[in-house]
């Protein structure tokens, strides 16, 4: 087997970050830092976790894909059949089933002063939340209110 065929046949694990629309917005490949200085005995490792609206999935792709970087890495990952299938079968954080709330036309978000912040949920259970400037949506949809602002 040639060197190029050998490299192509090898699989490598990559963690991908997927947004609520199923788009791959990031990736992570593990490496660690081993200090050479005597006395610094601890190996340093890093990783990532999902923030609200994201999912982190581990995929196995050909090494030739995993070795790419930047936008080419993200686009080639998105083309992989196995990655597409995994994303399709994994409800992301932003695509959770909201049950009856799918029927809601809008969701009003409140800031600390109970003032409506003009947040509008454009969803069908899979949509995004638009926030006005200086407002913040933390975590899940803990407060979901349909109708007029009290």
């Amino acid at each position: 087997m040639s060197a190029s065929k050998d490299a192509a046949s090898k699989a490598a694990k990559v963690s991908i970050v997927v947004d609520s629309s199923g788009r791959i917005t990031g990736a992570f490949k593990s490496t660690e830092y081993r200090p050479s200085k005597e006395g610094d005995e601890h190996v340093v490792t890093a990783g990532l976790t999902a923030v609200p609206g994201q999912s982190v999935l581990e995929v196995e792709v050909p090494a030739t894909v995993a070795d790419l970087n930047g936008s080419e890495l993200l686009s080639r990952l998105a083309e992989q059949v196995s990655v597409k299938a995994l994303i399709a079968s994994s409800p992301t954080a932003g695509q959770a089933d909201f049950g009856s709330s799918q029927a809601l036309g809008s969701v009003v978000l409140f800031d600390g002063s109970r003032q409506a912040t003009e947040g509008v949920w454009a969803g069908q259970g899979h949509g995004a939340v638009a926030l006005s400037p200086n407002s913040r949506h933390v975590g899940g949809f803990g407060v979901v209110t349909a109708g007029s602002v009290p």
Partner: protein
Amino acid sequence: MAFNNVGFFTIAPGQRQRIFVTFGGADHGAQAIHAQPLNPGGFLQVNDQAKVLNNDGTFTYWVNVTNIGSVTTNYSVQGGGYV
């Protein structure tokens, strides 16, 4: 201790990633964690540094990395203690 070139991350423009760093679970005091852009045009901002004492007694350090530039950016994590 200082550390460099930990992990290989890729992030699209406008996106945020929540990163953790561990020193084998050991407490390394106050640690600053930053993102080292690896390609031209990389413009990464870090904030929300945090330190967690886990239930098993180990420590984990956390930071948010946001790509505030216009290009998909590769980065690794670097940092160190304040001493």
